């Protein structure tokens, strides 16, 4: 019951989701859509669970006066204000979208833009032409970067009478060898995901059930 029940449920739901792909019967299509709706509802509830976990973590941090505990009040206040703003003034207008536009979006994009500085220092370490493959990494990275800035469009020349621009080379690197590597990885990931999904439905993969009883 504790372990076999969920495995049987997983098998039934997984098979039902798969069967609808091979049959035109309306019942299976309807069942498929209903399961997708249930899935979305379960996802919604997991967000409450996640938020509960966040509140609990900060409550314990404050209670035990762990390092930087004072800032936990900021997190809890931010969370409470955002949720209350949505409950009181609704989500379409008022403080809720204001918080999103003037607090969350600017801070999130600034946080990501900070990575420009850290990426610069990381590229110094990564882009050292010590081996053949490291040199390829360096050349491909430099070509793509130069092809994306205004100076790149001025850098062009002709070889054997054929005009070559840096932008065109950069685009070629992105669209051919880069696309080949990405496509290879994507096919590999697709095969891996499909295999894992089959293992889950057949009950071979059970790690999602947690520790054994």
């Amino acid at each position, binding site marked *: 019951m504790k372990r076999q029940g969920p495995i049987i*449920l*997983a098998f039934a*739901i*997984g*098979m039902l*989701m798969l069967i609808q*792909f091979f049959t035109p019967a309306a019942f299976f299509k309807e069942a498929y859509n*209903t399961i997708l*709706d*249930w*899935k*979305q*509802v*379960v996802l*919604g*509830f997991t*967000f*409450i669970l*996640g938020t509960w976990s966040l509140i609990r973590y900060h409550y314990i941090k404050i209670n035990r006066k762990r390092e930087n505990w004072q*800032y936990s009040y*900021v997190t809890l206040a931010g*969370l409470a204000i*955002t949720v209350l703003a949505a409950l009181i003034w609704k989500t379409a207008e008022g403080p809720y979208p*204001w*918080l999103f*536009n*003037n607090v*969350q979006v*600017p801070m*999130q*994009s*600034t*946080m990501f*833009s*900070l990575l*420009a500085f850290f*990426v610069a220092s990381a590229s110094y370490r990564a882009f050292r032409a010590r081996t053949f*493959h490291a040199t390829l*990494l360096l050349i491909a990275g430099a*070509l*793509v970067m130069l092809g994306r*800035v205004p100076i790149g469009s001025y850098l062009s020349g002709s070889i054997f009478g054929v005009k070559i621009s840096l932008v065109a080379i950069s685009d070629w*690197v992105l669209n*051919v*060898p880069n*696309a*080949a*590597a*990405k*496509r*290879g*990885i994507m*096919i590999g990931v*697709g095969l891996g995901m*499909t295999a894992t*999904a*089959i293992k*889950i*439905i057949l009950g071979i993969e059970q790690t*999602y059930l947690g520790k054994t009883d």
Partner: protein
Amino acid sequence: MAVTHDLGIWVAGILTLAIFSFLYKDNPFYRFAEHLLVGVSAGYYLVQYFFSAAYKKLWVPVFQEGHHVLLVGGILGLLMFTRLFRRTEWISRYPVAFYIAAWAGYVIPSYIQVRILQQAQDTMFNPRGMPLGEALSALILLIGVSTTLIYFYFSAEHRGPLKTLSKVGITFLMIGFGATFGYNVMGRVSLLIGRFQFLFTDWLGIVH
């Protein structure tokens, strides 16, 4: 110079500077902004996901349209909370198993279609009637995809021709990683330029 009187832009500007202050070193202003971001983001996503699921997919269909079958999703969702108590923790395996299986059943046909068949189909080419440059690029793409896949084939030891082909594969992978890295750097830099534009144009009005 025309500094804005919009409170929202002032708040966004001050918080942007607080995040940028991390470039000097970790400090109380950065920590305040960082914790505020976590709290506001958690609240935002909770509202978005829970209300779109609980209201649009549960409350409206069940209590306003009479689709009682959707109540099952709500019961499964509620069962998730049983994991908060040690004695009932095992019950939460049911909604987890349901969610994982629904995902698995959904991804098998869609991944085979989109990530495997479609990608393999787009890699194949017919050189007949193609300009020489395009045909060469298509051939390089085919070699790149095949050798990259060979590089990730671990069921046999990479010896002889397999070793040579996997070396060609890693060459393509390195070019791919370099290009992705360069593309990411440019993305971050343009984001940084956007933030400076916000600070100097929208907030302080120094640059027009």
